[in-house]
């Protein structure tokens, strides 16, 4: 029950009680008057007259009061509805935009003020975290460069035994993986801080998909995985070519990596309403239902067995999600464990006039 209904009901109750009191008062007054007039049937007359009065005057007054009350509460609570709408739109990226205030200093205005202060504090703390990640990833790059460079220099030494060489090479592999993680982190930290500018232009998505399909076939070949492109409609979106290619390769690579030998990868690109819909489905172990909501989280690994997967950096899907959101699109994942896992990306189509540019 909304506050408005509740207040209106209470108000109706109060009005009814007042009506009763008024009725009772009127009845007494009337019977008194009638007795003084020495009427024979004072009681019946008084009741009838009171009833008439209450019906003809009291009831319309109550109805009017009720309507007025309903209107008043609605008016009083309308800023709350506005506030609710404004608060609904808050997410971590627009904390800086304060809620609209009436400025008249009433209770609701006070509430908005307090809420804005809270938002400002939250925004500051979010910023601090973002900046920390950004600085941390920058700071990590210099020592990583030094380490990689020195190991590579060491590997040039002809006098190394094969064991030493293997050990160094394996260290170098791990360092490079670390470097990729740092790269991914930097990218995401920058995206969070709104520091990555996309180079938007009309992009023929079908061409990118075909290109990516060819690469995926090659990637899948050694594991006997069959790759199919079931549909590839001619579609133009407004986007950043490099980031879209990164997105496609990222999804395709996952579909191959988390597959089974002799498995299957099916891709399609279709027009769906005013969006371009790209899907990648793959066979393989799949993702348990409880992990699905978290797969786009940074460093989330549903299956602990995957944590030793040397090739992935744990940021692939987070980056994919960022790329899709930056293009005002949506990405979702469905999985039937040990059957089929499907990722669906929807991107808004380019406007007709952009198409010609």
């Amino acid at each position, binding site marked *: 029950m909304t506050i408005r209904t509740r207040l209106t009901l209470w108000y109706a109750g109060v009005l009814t009680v007042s009506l009763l009191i008024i009725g009772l008062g009127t009845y007494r007054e009337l019977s008194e008057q009638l007795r003084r007039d020495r009427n024979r049937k004072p009681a019946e007359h008084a009741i009838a007259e009171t009833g008439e009065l209450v019906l003809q005057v009291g009831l319309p007054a109550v109805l009017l009061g009720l309507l007025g009350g309903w209107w008043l509460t609605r008016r009083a609570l309308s800023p709350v509805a506005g506030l609710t709408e404004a608060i609904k739109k808050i997410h971590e990226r627009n904390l800086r935009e304060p809620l609209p205030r009436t400025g008249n200093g009433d209770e609701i205005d006070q509430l908005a003020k307090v809420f804005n202060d809270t938002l400002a504090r939250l925004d500051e703390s979010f910023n601090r975290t973002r900046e920390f990640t950004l600085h941390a990833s920058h700071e990590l790059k210099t020592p990583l*460069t030094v380490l990689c460079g020195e190991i590579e*220099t060491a590997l*040039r030494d002809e006098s190394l035994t094969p064991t030493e060489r293997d050990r160094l090479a394996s260290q170098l592999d791990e360092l490079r993986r670390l470097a990729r993680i740092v*790269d991914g982190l930097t990218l995401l930290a920058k995206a969070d801080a709104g520091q990555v500018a996309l180079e938007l232009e009309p992009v023929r998505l079908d061409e990118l998909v075909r290109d990516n399909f060819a690469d995926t076939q090659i990637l899948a070949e050694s594991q006997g995985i069959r790759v199919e492109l079931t549909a590839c409609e001619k579609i133009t979106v407004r986007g950043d070519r*490099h980031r879209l290619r990164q997105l496609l390769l990222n999804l395709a690579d996952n579909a191959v990596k988390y597959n089974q030998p002799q498995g299957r990868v099916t891709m399609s690109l279709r027009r769906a309403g005013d969006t371009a819909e790209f899907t990648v489905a793959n066979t393989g172990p799949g993702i348990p239902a409880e992990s699905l909501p978290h797969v786009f989280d940074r460093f989330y690994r549903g299956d602990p067995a995957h944590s030793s997967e040397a*090739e992935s950096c744990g940021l692939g899907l987070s980056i994919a999600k960022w790329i899709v959101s930056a293009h005002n699109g949506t990405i979702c994942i469905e999985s039937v464990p040990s059957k089929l896992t499907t990722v669906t990306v929807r991107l808004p189509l380019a406007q007709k006039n952009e198409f010609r540019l």
Partner: protein
Amino acid sequence: MRVLVVEDEKKTASFIRKALQAEGFAVDVCHNGDDALAAVRVTPFDGIVLDIMLPGRDGLSVLRLLRERKNATPVLLLSARGEVNERVEGLNAGADDYLPKPFELAELVARVRALTRRSGENKSTVLRVADLTLDTVTHRAQRGGTDIELTAREYRLLEFLMASAGRLCGRMMILEKVWDYDFDPGTNLVDVYIKRLREKIDADFEPKLLHTVRGAGYVLKEQP
């Protein structure tokens, strides 16, 4: 070949110098932009490795000043930030190449070598390594007179490797030139394509031409 390395981080500067010296380059090192500008005034270099983040005058403004003074020495920019925008900004300011940190040393050396290679070294439309030929006009590949069927991507890969024959090609460099990727996809795409290409151009022929340099990249040449 004389190369100037401008890098404030001493250790990084030191191993870059060692690696380039090992490849037969004469190397000078500066730790800040003003020293670099002074060095360039007195010594003609064949190439400059320039870090963007320098104390005082940063790499980009050093580069702009160089170009303003009509100095056309090829410049390879290094950056720890690795932003796409920065790359574009650097190339617009007159850089010839750009490498984000942390880079692979072999990659850096390969790029410096490509940078300092005299232009017009290979003007022919037919590339040739031993008995392997590639016609860049008709896209026809042959080894020992036998035609080799190549997909579009394989063709571009082979073209790149043959154009840089004898020089090491790092994975990032290949991804950039053949795939036009400006990011590290974290896949073994390059290795898989190299394997396929090797099956086509090397499997049935001697001597082998396409060699792997462990932890560094690939090189196409006649001698191992």
